[in-house]
């Protein structure tokens, strides 16, 4: 399932229609309120979560680019998590996730801080205000949300289009620098590059 953290169906539809190969077996949903993002602890995209047959989250969100187009920024080799995914699907073997270095359990989503939870709440209100034409009020709450959770990209970068900023331009590069200076939080790659792909994958 591909869940878009965007403000409207109109924004995501062209991306779905341009998908190559076409999305035949993938269902697409919109999460404008970031309810799924919060429920699973997603702080950036593209992130994947693995759920097993017993409805258990067996891999919390990690950043998993579909290919290596932006590897210069992500420093993640897509082959690694693709191999790990194939291994889980075919053999039921889970990857050993690298430690975050902050004492939290790498096998569950990082626990949020109180500030981050307030930031998510402010963003949810801001997004609703933006979608309902209350632009000035929306901006106040977006600004507060970003202040509270500056390194949650779903808040800081995700609000750029609504705030008239460029998520692919200088506003992005400023955020990228801030995040890099902070030690690239929430960006542990799934290991698996040394695992040969399953022969029948």
């Amino acid at each position: 399932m591909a869940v878009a953290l965007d403000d409207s169906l109109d924004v995501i539809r062209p991306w779905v229609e341009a998908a190559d190969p076409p999305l035949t077996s993938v269902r697409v949903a919109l999460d404008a309120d970031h309810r799924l993002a919060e429920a699973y602890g997603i702080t950036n995209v593209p992130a994947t979560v693995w759920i097993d047959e017993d409805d258990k989250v067996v891999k919390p969100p990690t950043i998993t680019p579909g290919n290596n187009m932006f590897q210069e920024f992500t420093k993640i080799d897509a082959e690694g998590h693709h191999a790990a995914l194939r291994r889980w699907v075919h053999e039921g073997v889970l990857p050993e996730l690298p430690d975050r270095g902050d004492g939290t359990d790498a096998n569950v989503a990082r626990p949020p801080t109180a500030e981050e939870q307030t930031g998510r709440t402010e963003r949810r209100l801001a997004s609703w205000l933006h979608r309902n034409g209350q632009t000035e009020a929306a901006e106040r709450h977006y600004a507060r949300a970003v202040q509270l959770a500056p390194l949650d990209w779903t808040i800081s970068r995700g609000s750029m289009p609504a705030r008239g900023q460029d998520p692919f331009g200088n506003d992005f590069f400023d955020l990228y620098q801030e995040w890099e200076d902070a030690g690239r939080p929430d960006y542990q790659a799934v290991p698996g590059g040394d695992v040969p792909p399953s022969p029948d994958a």
Partner: protein
Amino acid sequence: MTPVELTVLSTDETVTVGALAEDDRLLLEASAVHAVTGWEPKPEGLCRGDLCIPVRDPAARDHEGRYDLARVAAALHRPYAAERLDDESRAVAAIGEAAHERAAVYNDGTAPRVDLIDLDGNPITVPDHSRRKRLLLAWSSW
């Protein structure tokens, strides 16, 4: 005091109730508090099943017994944000989840189900109930 139509965005749903607005305060009857928070005001506090959280803040209720939503959220240790809309007859509030509640859901490990909409605007529950291995991909246009 102005009657307002109040939309409350909680972590899992959006509910609209009647309320009274006075300056920055949004005042709700007990039944509306129950509808928007899932916690029912009772003499012993805000209750859900057998669990009751006492409301010690005397300013949480006005002289008519109505509840100040910001103070209700504070008693529940939940983040809160609110805004009056331009036409003054509407207001919107968001009530989030406390960090420790969120962490408990992550630690429990059971995949939460979230109601979203699909590309046609129809309701869809994520993840589905298929009892297969499932992959959730969060993506965006930005």
